[in-house]
């Protein structure tokens, strides 16, 4: 049966609406609106043999910029004239409509979450149904689905391209009905900025961590923290070997609690020579956890904060491979912040599939990366920076030219999947199996949906997440891990706690310079303490603001843009 007429038949049965046309002399769009809040459309292409048929002109498609409902005659003529290969499904949000929301009763529909919910449903229906999908804003694009006129506003929309398969179409439309009955909504933690249409910046720098298939256990990074507690400084020439000797005694704890993949072990002769631990140290270097100045290995300024809290933490478990809440907070933040491109896409793939396998992910991962990188280069709105585009292009070329993607992807995916498992965001089989199944956990669902809130704030996918991390990471962490706030907290008691912690930093992170503490260390330490001890997520931006305004008589605040860091001094009077 002809796709176009099939499409119309199906829709006219389920949605009580009439299709309309939009087009010019180059292309014609056939669309049906108000199908459970979604718009279903497809570009119809003139059948080649009919190319100069007079009927085409009789239909008067050219310059059809306003929507025009089709007459019965036209509908009848349509299938014989046109064919199509895919259906486009989308819904839009008009920029500016957010201003009408209010904070008390905040329940706007989330465009990005709707996209991923639909993708998940469509995937369940038939895993080959979806051809492609996009999330973006569209300026000057005629709005088909809303009563608002476009004017100065642009649309924020997603697009899903699905194959025209006769038998699935009806089910697909049914899906729309069910998603529309309870559309996913935007989380409350972003309400203020969502309503205010706050602009978030994106440096568009793509950060990717260097990984080796061995580096699967975040517990080894935790052990690096323990190592630095014991040996704050070690000659770099012996660092690998000493770290390896330090972690080897923990082998049993790893095999008993998880499995033996990624284990650091001595060589055959039983001696530690550092080569087994090397990939983990390289990962730590890639994460910026280690300094090697004057040929001495020390913890970097960021990692020192973790080492400090680790040293004073009363662990729930003695097993370093079973991460504590604080470990998850620190590693989660570093991994998401420094590997956002890979991690967010990996989570996205698993989220859409809910349960999948390592092999399936391996099959699609490279393609999704390349598609996304192409999209990032398209320049939908503010991509004018040539250098940025060139960088993205370079990454795209590099990924496209992976020589043995099969083997390479093992090094890319295995560590990341296992980190996500260590963070309890995905589940992997404990025992070795030929087919590694991967499924997203409830926490993983929440975590990914929180990232979707960021997309809604940006009206787009995110390339570099720095500003979102600074604004919201503790919030998405607290939401994901369901951390309850302590009872009887007042704004004042929280601020008092913050002040005590800042003062403590002057002792904890003392350096050779007198009366001075590095801002990033203070902020990250206080943030961690407030979340772990009080159950309150506070952003870096909030803390910055409190220090600069409410504590301005207590501390001198200095910030240097070139280092993206600053320092505090106590005011002496």
């Amino acid at each position, binding site marked *: 049966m002809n796709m176009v007429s099939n499409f119309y038949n199906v829709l006219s049965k389920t949605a009580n609406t009439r299709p309309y046309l939009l087009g010019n002399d180059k292309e014609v769009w056939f669309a049906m609106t108000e199908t459970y809040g979604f718009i279903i459309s497809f570009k119809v292409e003139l059948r080649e043999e009919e190319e100069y048929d007079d009927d085409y002109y009789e239909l008067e498609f050219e310059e059809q910029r306003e929507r025009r409902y089709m007459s019965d005659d036209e509908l009848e003529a349509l299938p014989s004239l046109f064919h199509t290969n895919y259906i486009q499904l989308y819904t839009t949000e008009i920029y500016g409509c957010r201003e009408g929301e209010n904070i008390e009763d905040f329940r706007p529909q989330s465009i990005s979450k709707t996209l991923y919910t639909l993708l998940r449903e469509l995937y369940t229906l038939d895993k080959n149904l979806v051809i492609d999908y996009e999330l973006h804003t569209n300026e000057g694009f005629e709005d088909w689905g809303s009563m608002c006129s476009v004017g100065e506003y642009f649309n924020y929309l997603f697009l899903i391209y699905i194959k025209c398969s006769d038998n699935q179409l009806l089910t697909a439309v049914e899906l729309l009905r069910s998603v529309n009955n309870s559309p996913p909504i935007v989380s409350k933690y972003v309400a203020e900025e969502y309503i205010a249409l706050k602009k978030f910046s994106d440096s568009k720098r793509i950060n990717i961590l260097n990984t080796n298939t061995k580096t699967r256990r975040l517990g080894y990074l935790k052990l690096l923290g323990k190592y630095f507690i014991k040996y704050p400084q070690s000659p770099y020439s012996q660092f690998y070997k000493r770290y390896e000797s330090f972690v080897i005694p923990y082998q049993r704890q790893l095999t008993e609690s998880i499995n033996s993949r990624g284990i650091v072990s001595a060589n055959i002769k039983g001696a530690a020579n550092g080569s087994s631990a090397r990939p983990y140290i390289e990962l730590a270097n890639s994460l*910026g956890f280690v300094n*090697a100045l*004057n040929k001495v290995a020390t913890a970097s*300024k960021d990692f020192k904060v973790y080492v400090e809290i680790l040293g004073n933490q009363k662990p729930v478990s003695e097993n370093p491979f079973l991460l504590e809440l604080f470990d998850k907070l620190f590693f989660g933040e570093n991994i998401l912040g420094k590997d956002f491109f890979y991690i967010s896409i990996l989570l996205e793939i698993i989220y859409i599939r809910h349960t999948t396998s390592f092999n399936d992910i391996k099959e699609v991962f490279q393609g999704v990366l390349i598609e996304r990188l192409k999209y990032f280069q398209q320049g939908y709105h503010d991509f004018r920076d040539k250098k940025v585009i060139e960088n993205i292009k370079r990454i795209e070329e590099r990924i496209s030219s992976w020589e043995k993607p099969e083997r390479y992807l093992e090094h890319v995916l295995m560590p990341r999947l296992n980190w996500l498992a260590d963070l309890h965001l995905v589940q992997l089989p404990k025992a070795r199996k030929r087919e590694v199944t991967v499924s997203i956990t409830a926490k993983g669902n929440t975590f990914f949906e929180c990232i979707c809130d960021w997309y809604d704030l940006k009206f787009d996918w995110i390339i570099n997440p720095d500003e979102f991390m600074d604004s919201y990471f503790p919030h998405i962490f607290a939401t994901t891990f369901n951390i309850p706030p302590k009872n009887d907290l007042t704004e004042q008691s929280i601020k008092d706690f913050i002040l005590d912690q800042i003062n403590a930093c002057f002792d904890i992170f003392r*350096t*050779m310079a007198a009366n*001075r503490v590095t801002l*990033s260390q203070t902020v990250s330490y206080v943030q961690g303490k407030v979340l772990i001890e009080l159950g309150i997520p506070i952003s870096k931006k909030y803390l910055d603001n409190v220090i600069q305004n409410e504590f301005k008589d207590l501390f001198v605040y*200095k910030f240097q843009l070139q280092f993206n860091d600053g320092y505090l*001094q106590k005011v002496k009077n």
Partner: protein
Amino acid sequence: MAFNTSFNLKANPFRSVPANQAEELVWAGFDEIKGKFEERIKKGIRIPNSGLVLNWGEYGSGKTHAAKFFGKQSVLEKLASESKGSKPLYIYLTLPKGRSPIEDIFTAIIDKLDIGKLRSEVREISKDIDEYIDNTFDDTFVKTSVKAVFSIAEQGIVKRFLYGSLTPKEIRDLGQLEILRGFKSENDYIKFLSGLFSTLTFNKRVYSCVILWIDEFEDIATLTRASSDKVNSFLREIFDNTPSNLLVFLNLTQSPLFTVEDLGEYMSESLKSRIRHRINFETPNQKQLTEYLEDLLSAFRIENQPDKSGLFPFDVEVVRSVFSDFKNASLRRYNDIFSTLLELADIESIPEIDIAFYEKNKNEITGF
């Protein structure tokens, strides 16, 4: 340029960079910091131990100014006479940014030295200098090259020898001094400098100590890892080889860096153990700012003005407002602000800078 004499000032006292003329370098306010430097230098004049002093402060807090001020001959002579010792030999340099930092430091030091003057000073006071050199150094190269500095009358030859630009024939001609080769390794530079410093401060007779003041030490963070290791090893070696009478000041900006908390992390442990003192250039409070202004203005007065405030031509309210409007600004920023106000008042021939004038011109100062 004519300056409004009704301000009772010889010139605009506020500078954004330290003066080069010795007479224009004045120390105003901040008695505590000044006292710390004086105390440290006096100790260096009296006691033999070598040591390292770190001067911390943000950009524009006065570190370079301090370096230049304590390099003034009159200041050093005064400190020497107060300590009843001979004066220190002062050498100021900025941290070299090139690929061979040790050679660059060596060259910068040699550039600063007046070899002829040193030679005559040493020859005049220490007759037994050759004997000292022979007995102190066991390295032949150090022995002969240090001796050469104090033996060769022709200064051009000495400098060219130090810069490594003598021809092999010219080196051979120095045969009677047993100089057989020129400088070859970084170790040669360090050992030579140590030998030179030790000789110059031998028994604290000619010079009580050598003050090596390295400015912009924060640039170590911009060097390659190899170069920053070299800078560390230069400092470590120079201390190891010059156990007495060497006082090194390092000016460090309070800057956070990408992976380390501050510049202190760039210093090796052996160097840290040499630190004798840390001097902190804090952001001034209102009292310190007021004292600084009074001191500075008074150094530029044409005549005494018993009937006027020490802050004249600034009204005390202006100082208070500037402080509260630009809280925690650096000293350089304050200098810029007061300088601009003074220049504007000069242009408009305003006799006194009051709060109304300040408010009116605030945009000019804030820049927007």
